[in-house]
């Protein structure tokens, strides 16, 4: 599948990753890494890790690592087309499903589906919270930052961005 310009191949990868990303980005990151670094050698391991860090540290969906990789492989248009490949097909599908979903909003089966899916989603988000904390927390300070942000966000009306800014500053100072 390789040709001279890697961007065409990467757009297919972005499309693939988007469509298999049921349940969120974290589920497909290993696959993205495998495609981009191991199989096609579009980026080195360090470049991939750097881009993952940039996408995580800047605001917006972390999935936009796709935009960043698209930029590095194909410049401006590479970034745009990769992002469109990431979003357009799944957005169209979601839109169609959302329309049908509203249309049947009083149907008994729809109420059952909704009632059934919510608990599973709650469990999955709790699991991803647990896994994120386990991946991030390697020091007492990190545990404290996690707990402080969770507490502020759950119990108070203070904007958690303050906690995140403090955590980033402490991290920069090498304390996390």
């Amino acid at each position, binding site marked *: 599948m390789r040709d001279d310009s890697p961007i065409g191949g990467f757009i297919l990868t972005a499309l693939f990753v988007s469509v298999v990303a049921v349940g969120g980005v974290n589920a497909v990151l290993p696959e993205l890494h495998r495609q981009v670094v191991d199989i096609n050698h579009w980026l080195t391991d360090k470049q991939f890790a750097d881009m993952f860090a940039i996408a995580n540290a800047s*605001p917006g969906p972390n999935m936009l690592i796709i935009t960043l990789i698209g930029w590095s492989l194909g410049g401006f248009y590479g970034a745009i087309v990769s992002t469109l490949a990431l979003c357009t097909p799944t*957005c169209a599908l979601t839109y169609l499903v959302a329309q049908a979903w509203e249309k049947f909003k009083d149907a008994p089966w729809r109420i059952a589906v909704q009632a059934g899916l919510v*608990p599973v989603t709650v469990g999955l988000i709790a699991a991803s919270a647990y896994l994120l904390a386990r991946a991030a927390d390697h020091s007492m300070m990190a545990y404290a930052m996690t707990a402080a*942000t969770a*507490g502020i966000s759950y119990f108070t009306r203070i904007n958690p961005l303050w906690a995140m800014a403090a955590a980033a500053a402490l991290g920069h100072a090498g304390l996390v």
Partner: protein
Amino acid sequence: MKDGGRGNGFRFRKARAHAPHPTVLERKPGGFIISKMSDSTVETLEQTSVPTLPEIFLGFLGIALSGFGGVMPWAQRMLVEKKKWLTPEKFAEDVALAQFLPGPNIVNLSIVVGSRWRGALGSLVACIGLIGAPVALMMILGALYARYGDAAWLSGPLAGLSASAAGLVIAMAAKLAAPLFRGKRIMAISFAILSFIAVGFLRVPLYWVLFVFGPLSVAAFWWRLR
């Protein structure tokens, strides 16, 4: 008819300046929509309103620009707590739908709520609000990275940010789980705990949980609703 669910005296005040002030409550699956919030006696009910297109855009832009290390907790904060466009229950339902469809969850969520509020245009505006600015930022950062070729210095701040972001997701999970526990909904709590253990501790692949526990849970609720 189609506009029925979108009725809101505030948001349409120009178009409906001469309309009578309805105080009728509309029953929605996720709570109540108050057609006209003029009466202090309705305070005890969940109040939601339907945003205009510019409001949708700015709302999702705000979500995107706050979303360091993960966006979904910020969607909850903006849509449910600050703007009160969705009840907590409705938010949980929409996130569930977004999660079970392919693609980035937060982008799916923008499509789902945007389409309910303002149709196709609402979806488009919500989605562009959500990813427009971050995409532009990504390209700027991409250019800087291409020039300087190193982001290793980010590892320090990112360590702190990741720890903090995990806390946000914990709080979000607690907020989503709270209604299940308050309502003592044993079956829902059981499925939530099973999914949590399967993915969190047993490391079962996500799609297994989605496509095995999802249908099982739906079947259980269906059986009970009948």
